[in-house]
């Protein structure tokens, strides 16, 4: 299984979900597959997307928040897992596309998950009951897609082969500020609220 196969299955299911991606190859693939989805937000650096997703899920408890992570990004912020387990947010799904390498290193340096580290086990030990690992497309359909449209806290570790498809895709010409404002205006419109800091004249 490669990451893009999972993302291709997710894209047609987008309605009003809020989708955050960390800075890894999946952000290029996802924003290429679902460029029109106004609920997309790029969180510019590794290790921050799950935290931002938790904050959004707390602020908007009736909206499904989906976080697209990589193994490298999760390993950079393992402190998220106990917080996630204890908050037990019913509207948050975290997909970890675990290819066991730092693709961005350009030489595929292995991550800890290529060794003995098991992210699902860490998640479970942190209190995330609905943590699973999927190894193929059928497993992703069964255990991953319910996290796109369903309820509850989902933590889905997707074991994927390293794929360099994202390097063939033109990089989005949208910067972090433009993503942020588009995202916030979308929230304002769909929630009927004014986000305080962008409402100031």
């Amino acid at each position: 299984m490669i990451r893009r196969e999972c993302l291709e299955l997710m894209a047609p299911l987008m309605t009003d979900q809020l989708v955050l991606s960390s800075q890894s190859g999946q952000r290029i693939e996802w924003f290429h597959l679902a460029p029109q989805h106004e609920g997309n937000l790029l969180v510019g650096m590794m290790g921050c997307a799950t935290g931002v997703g938790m904050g959004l899920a707390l602020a908007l408890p009736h909206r499904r928040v989906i976080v697209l992570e990589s193994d490298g990004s999760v390993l950079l912020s393992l402190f998220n897992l106990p917080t996630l387990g204890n908050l037990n947010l019913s509207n948050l799904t975290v997909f970890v596309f675990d290819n066991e390498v730092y693709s961005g290193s350009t030489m595929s340096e292995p991550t800890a998950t290529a060794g003995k580290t098991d992210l699902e086990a860490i998640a479970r030990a942190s209190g995330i009951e609905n943590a699973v690992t999927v190894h193929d497309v059928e497993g992703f359909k069964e255990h991953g897609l319910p996290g796109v449209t369903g309820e509850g806290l989902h933590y889905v570790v997707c074991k994927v082969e390293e794929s360099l498809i994202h390097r063939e895709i033109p990089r989005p010409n949208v910067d972090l500020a433009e993503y942020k404002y588009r995202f916030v205006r979308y929230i304002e419109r769909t929630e009927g609220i004014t986000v305080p800091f962008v409402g100031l004249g």
Partner: protein
Amino acid sequence: MEPILAEKLVHGLKAAGIDFMTYLPESRLSQILPLLREDGTVQLVGAASEQEAITIAAGAALGGKRVACYMESTGPYVSAYSLLTVGKQMGVPILLLIGFLGSFADQRNSFLYVTIGMRMIPTLEGLGIEYRVVEDAENLERHIRDAQRVSDSMRQPAALIFSGEFAR
């Protein structure tokens, strides 16, 4: 911190419209936590790391909350990465409330805190975080509102750093 100062601090946060706060507790300002919990106006979220506390607060701000993040003076070091990437690069306002352990006016200063405290303001300056040091309760409510307004206007984190009477 005297109980009356904790009450004034909580009152000032509510008056500034803060309705969401992440935190890692410390020793100088922690009396605000039970007051906030009892009051219920401000949604409190404990974090495992100040770096995480910044990201959770940022997410809540994007979702429409007016947010604060409470930490001790080690917090800016631990959270420097998320302050820069999420706070400044993406541009999200977060009111930072920092217990200034190890500062000149820290009434409980010791060898444990002083090295960290003395380098904290240069660290904030290096990160480009605007700040104000508060040592007594005079004009406290205005200071909080001013800092919150600066943070909102800049679309960036801004800090209130509490020492002196707050650090007893």
